[in-house]
């Protein structure tokens, strides 16, 4: 997945956005709002709005706005260190799976710090993510953001997690991007990204294609439309950062902010396995700005990115044997701006 937090020029606006990437069989989608009649003092996040899936109680993307004034997103950290997959770190007793901890953090947390503190309890070592939690309560349009408590991250591996206040980073660089690579050194070491990044910049925090595209293009984001354009960006046949030592073509559809692994060549040779032809693409876009956030609204676009890439069409894809019951054949939709009752 790709996650992105951005301060507009002059701090006139603030954006948080996310693109979910997964199997294309996961395109049965539902945008949800839960408004529980719980006491707001006990359950600050008693209203939750999120992009989700049928039957799912949590986002799972993740992209959730809470009535406590928080937005939580995540991108997954792969674990290359197989030694972490043991009953020393992952066990059925004493641990609570990620989906439950994310639900409870969204419901109970008043602040970003509280969110990561709650989430860290009973670490199951499953769905190891870099979580990014934005606290909108510290943002006033046109004013400098404070030095702390605007943006917290949490990174998890089996048996270990770490949190950090990244408000300084947002203030200094005006953006924070998340692209499936850990930021925190100890997480990088434990997960195995340290070693991988020495071999391939594909795995390097700050050096991977998406990191470089975000760094190059974050200044183009000034409003919700330009935010959407960046998050759906994929022009892999022309973008220098999507180039690879691959055949028959020297680029990969995974080298965009929103991936299109389905457009890579079956049987092609790719220098990193995850650059190749796969049942894997950006499934959506979600984004909100300050005005939308105040009404717990966000903009959502369903389906893999197109323009300049071709529209995803189940009748014209090299992906065969991928289940897609109930899905439209052609994913040529545009965005919806949610307005809850």
């Amino acid at each position, binding site marked *: 997945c790709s996650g992105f937090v951005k301060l507009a020029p002059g701090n006139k606006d603030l954006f948080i956005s996310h693109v979910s990437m997964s199997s294309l069989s*996961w395109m049965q989608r539902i*945008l949800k709002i839960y408004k529980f009649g719980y006491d707001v003092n006990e359950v600050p996040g008693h209203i939750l709005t999120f992009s989700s899936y*049928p039957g799912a*109680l*949590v986002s799972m993307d993740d992209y959730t706005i809470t009535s406590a004034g928080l937005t939580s997103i995540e991108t997954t950290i792969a674990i290359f260190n197989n030694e972490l997959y043991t009953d020393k770190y992952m066990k059925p*007793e004493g641990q609570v799976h990620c989906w439950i901890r994310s639900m409870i953090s969204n419901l109970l947390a008043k602040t970003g710090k509280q969110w990561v503190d709650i989430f860290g309890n009973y670490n199951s070592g499953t769905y190891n*993510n870099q979580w990014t939690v934005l606290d909108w309560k510290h943002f006033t349009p046109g004013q400098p953001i404070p030095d702390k408590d605007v943006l917290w991250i949490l990174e998890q591996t089996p048996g270990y997690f770490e949190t950090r206040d990244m408000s300084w980073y947002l203030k200094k660089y005006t953006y924070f991007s998340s692209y499936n690579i850990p930021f925190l050194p100890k997480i990088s070491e434990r997960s195995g990204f340290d070693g991988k990044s020495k071999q391939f910049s594909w795995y390097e925090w700050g050096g991977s294609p998406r990191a470089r595209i975000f760094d190059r293009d974050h200044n183009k984001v000034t409003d919700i439309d330009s935010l959407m354009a960046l998050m759906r960006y994929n022009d892999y046949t022309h973008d220098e950062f999507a180039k690879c030592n691959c055949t028959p073509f020297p680029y990969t559809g995974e080298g965009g902010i929103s991936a299109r692994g389905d457009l*890579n060549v079956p049987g092609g040779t790719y220098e990193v396995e995850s650059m190749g032809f796969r049942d894997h693409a950006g499934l959506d876009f979600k984004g909100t700005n300050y005005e939308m956030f105040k009404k717990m609204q966000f903009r*959502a676009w*369903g389906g893999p990115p197109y323009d300049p890439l071709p529209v995803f069409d189940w009748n014209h894809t090299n992906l065969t044997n991928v289940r897609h019951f109930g899905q439209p054949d052609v994913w040529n939709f545009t965005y919806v701006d949610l307005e809850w009752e």
Partner: protein
Amino acid sequence: LHAERKPWAEDNRVPMEKVLSDHSSAKFKYEYVAVCVNSTDETLLDIVHGKECKNAESRVALGKYSNQVNTTGWGILEIETFASHSYDVQAYAAGVAEGELTRLQIYYHYKNTIETMCTNHTLFCKRLYKYLQKNLDWLRSEVIAQPPTDPFWRQVNLTFAQLTGIYDSYSKRNLTPEIGFDLHPIYMMQLAGDMFDLNKLLNKTADPLDYPEGGR
């Protein structure tokens, strides 16, 4: 055959102007359900299609749903519960409303993501079943052991109440507000992200098209 085609095709591009114009003219229908306390047996809930129960006090939850999957790619769901009822009943009723309104999409999602997960992976699924059942048993025991005022464990309980509501409603079972810690397909839908690592822990053989760095 497929490998000979270009990785993308010019012929299925749709001009952005057409997409936006089609979208702006779309009209979306909404369906409502109310979840109400049964008038003769207060231990049961009823689903009423529409917004109102027979009397206002008996309304525990209200759900609103628009299935726009074929026009925007999304279903849009709103669930509201009412403070005059206990948290447990509210959470269960929220699930009931969702299960009723989104049954068709749950079914499709089940077909796409759950139905075949154990095909050719029988031994893995036996290990998984054992692991998940043990975890559910532990969660149940903790919910009982912890003081009911503990915020974390109270929310664990409410989360499973909501999950039980979805399952009961989807499966058209009697709607008795209960909290089950049971392994069923709706529970498996929650675990999608967690499964990336449970697959590795429990040595599932990777399928050929799986993304090698499983995640979202």
